[in-house]
């Protein structure tokens, strides 16, 4: 996992070797704004899966500092209870500048945990805003966590985060306003265009810190997994998963090749910028040249 995260040569070969062992785990994404209780919900979900003897992997993503590149990864604090349980494997990751709510290597690390034999892999995103929806491409079932008091009902009709939910958890529901959030979500869901047989995202009230509503949330996750595996749907679901997997891997390889090309340029990105300015070149041409070099590099290395 370290090699994958650090983009070391050889990591791609390891991923190829373990790929045939993937595809069995149920990947659950948990996303929401900072402080809504994502980690606590994850902690309770781990407990609920463990009660059935299921092995659980967790990939918890926290932000990297845009200035120092360092990070404080603190999601484990809420998952203490499972620290020494051999059936639980928790890995913290930093975004390292990647936008979208995950780190660039999250998908690969999820596949490693899948190949390790985890029955469930929970992906906890960084605290997100309105448009960090990458988790929906990685996870099979996406939970969007909301809390009371985060804004008026116009927030609920905006595009983005709310559209990717397979299930809503209205957490901290022991606070005032939880029922209003539930109502607003339901109105939003009733208004959305849909076809016969579409999944209806349930809205579940939770108070994760007290363990309330976790059974309902688990039920919703299981129902969604069953629906996705159900006849007539499973083929499309699997194709969609392959599609997003392919897109993610290709984007990752191209980004890596471009970064390597820039690193190899004398003086790195600063040198490149200076040369572009000195030569009176436009940045589009310079970018095309870098991209072309990156593609030539890819041909030689095969994406490693």
């Amino acid at each position, binding site marked *: 996992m370290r090699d994958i995260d650090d983009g070391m040569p050889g990591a791609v070969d390891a991923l190829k070797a373990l790929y045939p062992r993937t595809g069995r785990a149920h990947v659950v994404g948990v996303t929401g704004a900072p402080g809504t209780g994502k980690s606590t919900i994850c902690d309770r979900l781990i407990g609920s899966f463990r009660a059935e003897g299921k092995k659980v992997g967790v990939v918890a993503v926290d932000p990297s*500092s845009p200035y120092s590149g360092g990070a*404080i990864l603190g999601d484990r604090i809420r998952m203490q209870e499972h620290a020494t349980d051999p059936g639980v494997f928790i890995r*913290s990751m930093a975004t390292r500048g990647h936008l979208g709510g995950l780190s660039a290597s999250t998908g690969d690390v999820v596949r490693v945990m899948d190949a390790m034999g985890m029955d469930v892999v929970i992906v906890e995103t960084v605290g997100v805003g309105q448009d960090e929806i990458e988790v929906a491409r990685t996870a099979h079932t996406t939970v969007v966590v909301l809390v009371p008091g985060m804004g008026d009902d116009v927030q609920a009709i905006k595009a983005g985060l709310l559209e990717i939910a397979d299930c809503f958890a209205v957490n901290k529901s022991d606070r005032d306003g939880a029922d209003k959030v539930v109502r607003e979500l339901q109105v939003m869901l009733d208004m959305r265009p849909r076809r016969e047989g579409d999944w209806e995202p349930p809205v579940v009230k939770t108070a994760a810190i007290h363990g309330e509503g976790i059974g309902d949330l688990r039920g919703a996750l299981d129902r969604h997994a069953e629906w996705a595996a159900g006849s007539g749907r499973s083929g499309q679901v699997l194709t969609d998963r392959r599609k997003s997997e392919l897109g993610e891997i290709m984007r990752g390889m191209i980004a890596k090749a471009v970064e390597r090309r820039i690193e190899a340029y004398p003086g790195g990105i600063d040198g490149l910028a200076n040369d572009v300015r000195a030569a009176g070149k436009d940045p589009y041409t310079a970018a095309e040249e870098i991209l072309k070099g990156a593609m030539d590099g890819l041909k030689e290395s095969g994406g490693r």
Partner: protein
Amino acid sequence: MSSTRKLRILVAKPGLDGHDRGAKIVARALRDAGFEVIYTGLHQTPEMIAAAAIQEDVDAVGMSIMSGAHMVLMPAVVDLLRARGGEGIAVFGGGIIPDDDMEALRAKGVKGLFTPGTPLAEIVDWINANVTPRQ
């Protein structure tokens, strides 16, 4: 950058005392130095710390102990890491540690020891000098 090792460091607060201000300040300083810091919170047992260090594949474990239990807890983590294939993980610690204990702890494999008042830059320098990304 595509293929560069970034140091990963676990900062843990073992034992029963609840003073984690120091641990949090160190964690913050390590973040600002560009390291990825996994912070696990209060009241950690040596087993919890070792398990987290292995799962997180860290290069170093830093412990903050104010309760006087450092002679038991710090070597216990060193031993557990060794038993689980983590012998390459550097172990360092901070707290109220008498000089007499320092030698004994170093002999038991706790490589870096810092007492109250140590400038944060000294801890960062120690890490840069003594901790390398594990291969």
